[in-house]
């Protein structure tokens, strides 16, 4: 079935990529799509914890916030280039991931979830109260947009990215990058160690996996990707405030991951599309029905209940699918097919 869908998906992707260049392209639509792309990055980042490792993380938005404020503050105070900020923000996110992970990852189940929840709340409190650094509830306005500075080559070559179109492409590149990284990790020693932890922690340890270390690595990478999303968001929205990083966002990203199927990377992307589009739709529809826009949270909750009831494993429940595309495994598959048919003819003879 997927093979038949492939050309259709390809055409859709090509159309989507060409759309922003069309004269009839619409800024609002582009904005929503870019938002979807940001959430795709976040969903892929969060997916590592509950999806790959089986760890319920309710504080993911904390790392998103850390990345965004790292990006915003470095831009405002030091005028750093986006291209320098991105790795710094990722490292800062990963650093906090490790600092939070090392003491707390010994906790299991609900206790761990509660601690991560507390962490995200602490980040918001910090952003709100440390006014000397973050300007608190006033937020951070006036963040410079992303620019390409080639003035060292030619004094005229300084390009600022203005409007929605370039950010759309930048976000596409970011999603493609994170997708590639996640797929490669999924089909590697690291990814298998995570899946083993998720499936059976004791058996994983018996296979020689250092559970705590691999959970911390997962936390660091997940946090780094969250921070990457934040770093982009800061330079795209050009304004930050602490209430953008409330617990609600963690829950939203978690819903995306669960909706798509825990541990399935493509599922995380689908989850991001569905929930952001739904959110935007409800934002339009609810006022018409005379309801406050906040009631859309109810709709999200309802969706979660329905998924849990009818599709508890999400829409794409398969995990560790990347290795099926690995040439080594394809090769093995061929060998096994030959082996099986050889065996059959062998018994017949």
């Amino acid at each position, binding site marked *: 079935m997927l093979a038949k869908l492939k050309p259709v998906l390809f055409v859709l992707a090509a159309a989507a990529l060409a759309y922003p260049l069309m004269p009839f392209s619409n800024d609002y639509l582009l904005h929503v799509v870019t938002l979807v792309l940001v959430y795709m990055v976040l969903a892929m980042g969060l997916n590592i914890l509950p999806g790959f490792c089986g760890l319920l993380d309710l504080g993911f938005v904390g790392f998103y916030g850390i990345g965004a404020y790292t990006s915003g503050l470095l831009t405002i105070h030091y005028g750093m280039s986006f291209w320098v900020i991105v790795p710094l923000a990722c490292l800062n996110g990963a650093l906090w991931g490790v600092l939070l992970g090392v003491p707390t990852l010994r906790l299991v189940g609900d206790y761990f979830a509660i601690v991560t929840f507390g962490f995200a709340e602490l980040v918001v409190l910090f952003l709100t109260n440390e006014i000397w650094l973050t300007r608190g509830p006033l937020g951070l306005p006036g963040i410079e947009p992303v620019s390409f500075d080639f003035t060292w080559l030619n004094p005229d070559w300084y390009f600022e990215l203005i409007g929605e179109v370039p950010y759309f492409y930048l976000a596409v590149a970011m999603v493609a990058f994170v997708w590639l990284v996640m797929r490669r990790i999924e089909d590697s020693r690291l990814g298998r160690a995570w899946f083993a932890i998720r499936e059976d922690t004791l*058996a994983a340890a*018996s*296979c020689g996996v250092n559970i705590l270390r691999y959970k911390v690595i997962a936390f660091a990478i997940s946090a780094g990707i969250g921070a990457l999303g934040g770093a982009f968001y800061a330079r795209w929205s050009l304004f930050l405030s602490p209430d953008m990083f409330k617990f609600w966002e963690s829950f939203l990203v978690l819903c995306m991951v669960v909706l798509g199927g825990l541990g399935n990377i493509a599922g995380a992307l689908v989850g991001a599309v569905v929930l952001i589009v739904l959110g935007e739709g409800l934002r339009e529809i609810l006022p018409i029905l005379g309801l406050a826009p906040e009631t859309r949270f109810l709709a999200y909750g309802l969706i979660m209940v329905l998924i849990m009831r009818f599709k508890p494993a999400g829409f794409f429940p398969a995990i560790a699918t990347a290795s099926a595309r690995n040439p080594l*495994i394809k090769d093995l598959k061929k060998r096994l097919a030959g082996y099986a048919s050889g065996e059959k003819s062998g018994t017949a003879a």
Partner: protein
Amino acid sequence: MEPLLKVENVTKRFGGLMALAEVSFEVRPGEILGLIGPNGAGKTTMFNCIAGVYKPTSGDITFAGKDGVVRTNGLKPEKMTGLGIARTFQNIRLFGALSVLDNVRVARHCRTSSNFFGAVLRTRSQKEEEKAIIEESMRWLEFVGLAKHALDNATSLAYGNQRRLEIARALATGPKLIMLDEPAAGMNPRETRRLVDLIHAILDAGVTVVLIEHDMKLVMHICQRLAVLDHGVLIAEGVPEAVRADPQVIEAYLGRGAAHA
């Protein structure tokens, strides 16, 4: 001969319950040692102490592993696997959502080293390592007779094959000693016969075996020596004939299960 594994006066308490009381025995290289005893005698607890899942309350466990003779109590399970002790579980613990091959590939973790950067950059050494992992994993799957199921889902295997997969996974960690916790439980007679062959093949591959088993016929048949636990106390140790004749053993175990023997 220098023992491979030496258990000396090991005691394990769970609160008020004495699961193991001053148990001592040794495992010699190249043998099959049967660890037997009635339900609740402490056999699985003994495995867990050796494998690093539990830390003995007191006593010493020493293993002549890859790093020479080391006192291992308190070491973590992954460290024990690294030293060369592999184990299976009484209740099958496979990675259910993964393929048969992936279950075994995970077990190569302790003998391989590529990390995040290798995975993302797909360096040459990472690719070579992945290839070697697949080859080694397939070798063990062939060894237990599951090669043709390599790309199937682990949970799609028949019960007996799931047990064999667990053994393949344990072997793939490259152990000197493998501990099998009731591997024949739930198997039909044919599967049990194949299991006996497999255990002999494991020995021939140079891996020492410790076996927990309820099926007395099986134990008497394949083990060179037996150690008998009852209520956490080691009540006998020796060759099967001697153990079978031991009055204490007959009372504690064979007496009640005479029909078995």
